[in-house]
């Protein structure tokens, strides 16, 4: 009788608690309450609270979705998404009886409107936490849900919280909620390889050694932004290649070169100055495999990172990023010649412009010459610094006698998008 009673009480609690659905933006409401509380303590504390709240609001606008299994998902736009849904569950716990328990636990929850099928994609322990990722779907739409709990927490807790109703893509990447961790998985027929270092050649190509994931179609890391580049191959076709974690909006202090999967040495500031009313800083670092990486940034706070060349159509990205900094990246085989595109922004979309900042420490550098159609164009350098319009190709540093004394490769816009000189592939 006691067991029946316990089970019945659990169900009664479930019935009662599931009527409570939090409104969006709990952090914003929490800060508002804090401000109200502090207001009673005096104007000084109130002013501090307002400032703290204001600083966090932009981040909240991009906050995670609220967890509830009541979304109606997103259209399935790739056959690879269906292949992912047909794949077996992956993860260190996927082959254990816990999988069936988790499936039952999720199945007991109310599903999204019209998403009548369920698939556990991942179940495993990473960085001491237990992770689950699953999809609710039908013939045309799907939604991703995921969560993590302490390893010892119950299944009921695991399937109850977390993120939900997110777009389901063939490459699923989930992160830990309280502990740094990243899990990536792809359709079972595909393979993930990882790389942590590369060598830059004179024509701007980064050569890498790739290591196949021991698990084949999934990887797990104890960092939310591991210093890796990932490549996903399905059959003989590379379907994805890029940083392990997306590098598009970054916090101050983020190691952007490591995030691009390039091991490197100390970071050195090479130049700082104004371009078009913004103050920019150029830093460089020697890559462990040879060559140099450069990061051009404005501002000291959060920043958006350029990866593509032309601006998208208006309205594609509407979030307010006016106060954010801008970042662009480049690589060079010659440590004495750095050429990085100046980024621009339209709305929330940040992209490479056709202007390139050239900074060289080659002795006697007098001018820089860039290929043009027809011929070439050149500008004088001011203490080794200049901004020149370049479509793509090799730019040449010349001395006062018009002798070539150095150069580097600038990626052609037609090869964009790229990050740190490496192409970003997403071909699903």
């Amino acid at each position, binding site marked *: 009788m006691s067991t029946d009673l316990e089970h019945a009480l659990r169900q009664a609690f479930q019935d009662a608690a599931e009527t409570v659905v*939090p409104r969006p933006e709990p952090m914003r409401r*929490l800060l508002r309450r804090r401000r109200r509380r502090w207001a009673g303590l005096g104007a000084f504390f109130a002013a501090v609270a307002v400032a703290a709240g204001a600083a966090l609001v932009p981040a909240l606008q991009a906050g995670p979705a609220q967890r509830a299994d009541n979304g109606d998902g997103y259209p399935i736009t790739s056959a690879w998404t269906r292949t992912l849904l047909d794949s077996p569950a992956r993860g260190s716990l996927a082959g254990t009886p816990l999988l069936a328990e988790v499936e039952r636990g999720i199945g007991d929850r109310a599903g999204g409107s019209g998403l009548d099928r369920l698939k556990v994609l991942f179940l495993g322990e990473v960085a001491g936490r237990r992770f689950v990722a699953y999809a609710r779907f039908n013939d045309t739409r799907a939604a991703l849900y995921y969560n993590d709990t302490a390893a010892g927490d119950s299944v009921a807790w695991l399937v109850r919280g977390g993120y939900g109703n997110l777009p389901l893509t063939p490459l699923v990447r989930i992160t830990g909620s*309280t502990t740094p961790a990243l899990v990536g998985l792809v359709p079972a027929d595909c393979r993930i390889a990882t790389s942590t270092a590369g060598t830059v050649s004179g024509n701007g190509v980064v050569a890498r050694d790739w290591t196949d994931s021991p698990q084949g179609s999934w990887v797990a890391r104890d960092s939310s932004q591991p210093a890796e580049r990932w490549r996903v191959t399905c059959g003989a076709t590379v379907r994805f290649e890029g940083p392990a974690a997306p590098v598009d909006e970054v*916090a101050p202090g983020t190691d952007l070169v490591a995030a691009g999967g390039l091991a490197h040495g100390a970071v050195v500031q090479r130049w700082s100055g104004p371009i078009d009313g913004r103050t920019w800083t150029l830093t460089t670092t020697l890559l462990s495999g040879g060559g140099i990486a450069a990061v051009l940034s404005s501002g000291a706070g959060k920043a958006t990172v350029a990866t593509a060349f032309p601006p998208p159509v208006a309205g594609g990205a509407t979030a307010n990023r006016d106060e954010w900094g801008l970042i662009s990246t480049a690589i060079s085989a010659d440590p004495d010649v750095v050429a990085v595109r100046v980024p621009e922004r339209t709305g929330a979309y940040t992209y490479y412009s056709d202007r390139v900042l050239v900074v060289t420490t080659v002795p006697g550098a007098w001018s820089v010459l860039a290929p043009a159609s027809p011929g070439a164009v050149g500008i004088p350098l001011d203490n080794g610094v200049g901004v020149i319009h370049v479509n793509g190709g090799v730019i040449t540093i010349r001395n006062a006698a018009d002798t070539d004394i150095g150069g580097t490769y600038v990626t052609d816009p037609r090869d964009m998008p790229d990050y740190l000189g490496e192409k970003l592939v997403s071909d699903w």
Partner: protein
Amino acid sequence: MAAGEFQDFVEVRYGDLLRTAYLLTGSQHAAEDLVQSSLLRVMRHWGRVDEPLAYVRRVMVNQRTSLWRRLRNAEVLTDDPPDRPGPDPTDRILQRQSLLEALDRIPVRMRAVLVLRYWEDLSETDTAELLGISVGSVKSQASRGLARLRGVLGVDELTRRAS
């Protein structure tokens, strides 16, 4: 833990904490108040918190079982509307109301034991540690709490829900 992780924690866990608080308090207003006040307290010590979820649970339960707090917050006033209710078929409204009224009639610490054991699925040992009482006390309070609910709702009613 980094300060930025606090925001992530709030965004991800708020709903779960709110549901637990709802079972502890029986009111969505009071639940919101309990969660927010607990999170604000945790926020100040975030850098020293190793297991944030367990820590917030502890703070919530301690605040709920604090006599002073219960007297002070006999009625919660807020300019925030309550979190919106989810789907709630008519035949479940009375069931939920019966449960909450039954929970209101039992001692607050006994209610906390029931919520931690049968909603949070904490073990007897973890429940005892969180509440700062012995495992034996957890067992006895859980047993008596179940009996009290059975007396109010009836075994048949609970059994029917379980089926």
